[in-house]
């Protein structure tokens, strides 16, 4: 197996790697930091925390986001929580256990060194956020509260109601705005990165579009950090925000950065089902709900009774039945596949029959009884118990229940929720080494935009952890290994031919898009791409479907470039034009995802190839042939070269993943 990529994992015992590396990584002195410029694209958890922390260290930072404010980045919508190996609950948690759970949860397709580092810094993240004034949930004694998430048997998830991402992002945002106020960060809102500028083989800046005026701008940086999130919107329908896109990462890919494991997408098991063709996005119901909600379908096929009318003995709690050790808290990939299996077999519920129940009746009853005991109400009526139980559930999940009711028109305190899996997160992303640098010198990728920590499936409450780990505690150290050798590089004037050329290429592409003057809207192409991806590269894939998908995507691409219609002009605020550019990139990415899924002749985590499953329908890995990171190098239209990076497990014993 050829290996062009060097992950630069430090030598030594696993638990010493990061400590030792951190203490020996070259430093940049404070005076030199002031003359080094860093570009940060994206202001979610990874971007905002990186921009704030690098500015605190003294670097000159320019930060960019396409939204009207850095506070809007989609990290804001994360609901359930953030993991940290604090062991505050005294239930046996440790750095090793978080590391182990994450590797196992990722179906043995993540790097040991990176994941252990993530677990090591997880505790610092909680401390930092508390110090910023993030109002985490607390117990009556004033200490931090925890809950459980999927794929673990300890309570290590910190949370702020169902709005944890919001509170963490506002913490990072306040740190970022503080640096903006001081003048260490220049913030560019409503700006979209449209290319990386390369000079002598290194990333030296970006071309950004001012989305209000349509003007293209050139920005120099000694290093460029892409913190631009995931690419779930390639499926059109996902839990991502409408604006979430792959464009920045894709431009980097076309300038030489390898794209790793693009086929690893996470389908989240508990989302509000699709209600019709008008649907523009899907809404998640946090995994934390599986702490208290029980998932079931009727035992009888095509049962037309309402959920509450189906008696206990006629219900199939299929997760508890199949996975007694973890029950409703199995990892996401497993819960999603199990829901699909039941619905495909004809046991689904609701009008579309593509849904299962998530039922809180038991939790309401249990909590109600506890409250009654607390209040010494030993002969409380059923109604009183239900009322008290609902109040407890409301405090834990109130905003989620409100959202469900608002979207579906049904009251989940009374009727069981109907849920179905939906695209949520992408484990794949730009290939990075231990320093978070792509294979392009000076170009970094942080957070969901990189591929590094979650293998083939991410555990719940670990995305927030990784975004903030990368931004607060990893990049501030690892960037020194590159920038310490850049202290003699003066700012490069943006009239350098490389900037001029890159800007011209971006301008030409915009003109090309605008001048197609066809008949179909960017939105309509996006919908069609999404349907191909969901049908043939979604929760289950097979060779025949993937081959068809590749042909269909190539045809769609041709049609896009010959029949696209963009209203309005290039030199004004034009969301249609911006959307068209993003859809064009999604189309190309979609093809690569299918190529990757077709190459990986095994099932692992979120990648389920129907040809490769156990007799019980579980994912069947092929460690002999596919225990590698598939990093793809762009070689021209519809052409990629595979650079596999072998995964080496020195500490964990590889096994078939079992949650039974």
């Amino acid at each position: 197996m050829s290996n062009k990529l060097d992950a630069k994992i430090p030598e030594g015992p696993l638990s010493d790697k990061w400590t030792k590396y951190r203490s020996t990584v070259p430093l940049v002195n404070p005076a030199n930091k002031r003359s080094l410029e860093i570009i940060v694209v994206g202001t979610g958890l990874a971007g905002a925390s990186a921009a704030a922390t690098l500015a605190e260290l003294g670097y000159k930072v320019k930060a960019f986001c396409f939204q009207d404010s850095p506070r809007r980045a989609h990290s804001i919508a994360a609901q359930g929580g953030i993991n940290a190996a604090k062991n505050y609950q005294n239930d046996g948690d440790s750095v090793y256990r978080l590391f182990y759970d994450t590797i196992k949860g990722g179906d043995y397709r993540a790097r040991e060194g990176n994941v252990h580092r993530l677990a090591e810094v997880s505790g610092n993240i909680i401390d930092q956020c508390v110090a910023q004034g993030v109002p985490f949930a607390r117990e009556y004694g004033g200490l931090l509260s925890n809950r459980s998430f999927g794929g673990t048997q300890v309570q290590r998830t910190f949370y702020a109601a169902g709005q944890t991402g919001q509170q963490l992002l506002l913490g990072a945002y306040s740190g970022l705005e503080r640096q903006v106020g001081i003048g260490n960060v220049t913030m560019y809102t409503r700006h979209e990165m449209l290319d990386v500028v390369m000079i002598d083989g290194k990333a030296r800046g970006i071309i950004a579009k001012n989305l209000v005026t349509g003007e293209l701008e050139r920005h120099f940086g000694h290093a460029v950090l892409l913190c631009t999130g995931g690419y779930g919107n390639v499926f059109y329908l996902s839990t991502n925000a409408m604006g979430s896109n792959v464009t920045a990462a894709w431009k980097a890919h076309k300038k030489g950065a390898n794209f790793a494991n693009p086929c690893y997408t996470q389908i989240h098991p508990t989302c509000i089902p699709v209600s019709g063709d008008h649907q523009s996005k899907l809404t998640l119901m946090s995994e934390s709900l599986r702490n208290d909600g029980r998932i079931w379908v009727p035992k009888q096929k095509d049962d037309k009774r309402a959920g509450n009318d189906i008696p206990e003995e006629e219900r199939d709690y299929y997760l508890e039945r199949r996975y007694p050790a973890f029950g409703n808290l199995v990892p996401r990939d497993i819960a999603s596949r199990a829901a699909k299996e039941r619905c495909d077999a004809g046991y689904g519920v609701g009008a579309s029959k593509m849904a299962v129940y998530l039922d809180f009746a038991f939790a309401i009853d249990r909590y109600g009884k506890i409250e009654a005991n607390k209040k010494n109400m030993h002969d409380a009526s059923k109604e009183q118990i239900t009322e008290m139980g609902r109040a407890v559930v409301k405090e834990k999940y109130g905003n989620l229940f409100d959202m469900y009711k608002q979207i579906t028109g049904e009251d989940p305190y009374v009727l069981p929720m109907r849920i179905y899996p939906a695209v949520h997160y992408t484990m794949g992303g730009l290939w990075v080494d231990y320093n978070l640098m792509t294979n392009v010198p000076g170009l970094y990728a942080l957070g969901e935009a990189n591929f590094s920590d979650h293998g083939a499936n991410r555990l719940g409450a670990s995305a927030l952890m990784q975004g903030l780990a990368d931004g607060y505690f990893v990049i501030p150290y690892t960037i020194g290994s590159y920038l310490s050798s850049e202290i003699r590089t003066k700012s490069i004037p943006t009239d350098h031919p490389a900037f001029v050329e890159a800007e011209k290429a971006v301008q030409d592409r915009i003109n090309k898009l605008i001048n197609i003057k066809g008949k179909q809207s960017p939105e309509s192409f996006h919908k069609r791409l999404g349907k191909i991806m969901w049908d043939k590269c979604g929760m289950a894939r097979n060779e025949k479907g993937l081959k068809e998908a590749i042909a269909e995507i190539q045809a769609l691409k041709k049609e896009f470039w010959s029949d696209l219609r963009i209203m309005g002009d290039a030199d004004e605020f034009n969301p249609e034009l911006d959307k068209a550019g993003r859809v064009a990139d999604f189309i190309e990415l979609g093809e690569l995802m299918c190529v990757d899924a077709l190459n990986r002749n095994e099932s692992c985590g979120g990648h389920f190839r129907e040809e490769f499953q156990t007799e019980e329908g579980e994912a069947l890995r092929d460690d002999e042939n596919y225990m590698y990171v598939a990093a793809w190098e762009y070689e021209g239209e519809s052409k990629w070269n595979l650079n596999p990076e072998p995964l080496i497990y020195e500490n964990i014993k590889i096994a078939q993943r079992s949650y039974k």
Partner: protein
Amino acid sequence: MSEGNMNITLKVWRQKNKKTSGKLETYQVEGISEDMSFLEMFDVLNERLVSEGTEPIAFDHDCREGICGMCSMYINGQPHGPLQGVTTCQLHMRSFKNGDTIVVEPWRSVAFPVVKDLVVDRSSFDRIIASGGYISVNTGNAQDGNSLPIPKDDADKAFAAAACIGCGACVSACKNASAMLFVSAKVSQLALLPQGQPERQDRAMKMVAQMDAEGFGSCTNTGACAAECPKEISLENIARLNREYLGASLGSTN
């Protein structure tokens, strides 16, 4: 594409950019389903406008689950429309009736200039936060999270204030275009927590000064802001901000 049987008359503010003046245009939208969100109705209309060769209506939106704060429509004279505690993106067509006429305008405030159609510039909010809406703690300085117990009640109140999504509905609802609810939510969150104490006075003074500099109006306690806030941020926060500001002006923390 028709999925439902609601027919709606929309009167929408169209304005090419900040420099030109705008006006209301009327559109008929047909076959709307009551399960559609308000913004999905705009998607349907925009797709039709593109097919007819007309420029679609620009509006801000992103998460479409009520948390990012980007959507900002002034619907029939109310920011985020008729429902209490709901953002525009979470408003569904079942809240309207077949045959309704709905007027949709952008946020209206000097401090929120129109960018295009229904899109406004809310960067003044970012500048208010940058002026002091934070705790000055560099990464790496923090002590253990549990070394600082915080009474649950204080933590819950801080969280309720911190739930502000920065959408600007409060400003839009206010006849004076005051940003007091927004500013008071952040000041309250940090004043309620022990971590926020060292900079408490300075923070209130700086944020209020920046709010004034941005051209927001004064607060006359009419309470429209809290009534229209999609996150139901309480007026108590404004009372607290007044106390904080007065205390800071007089040099006392009580």
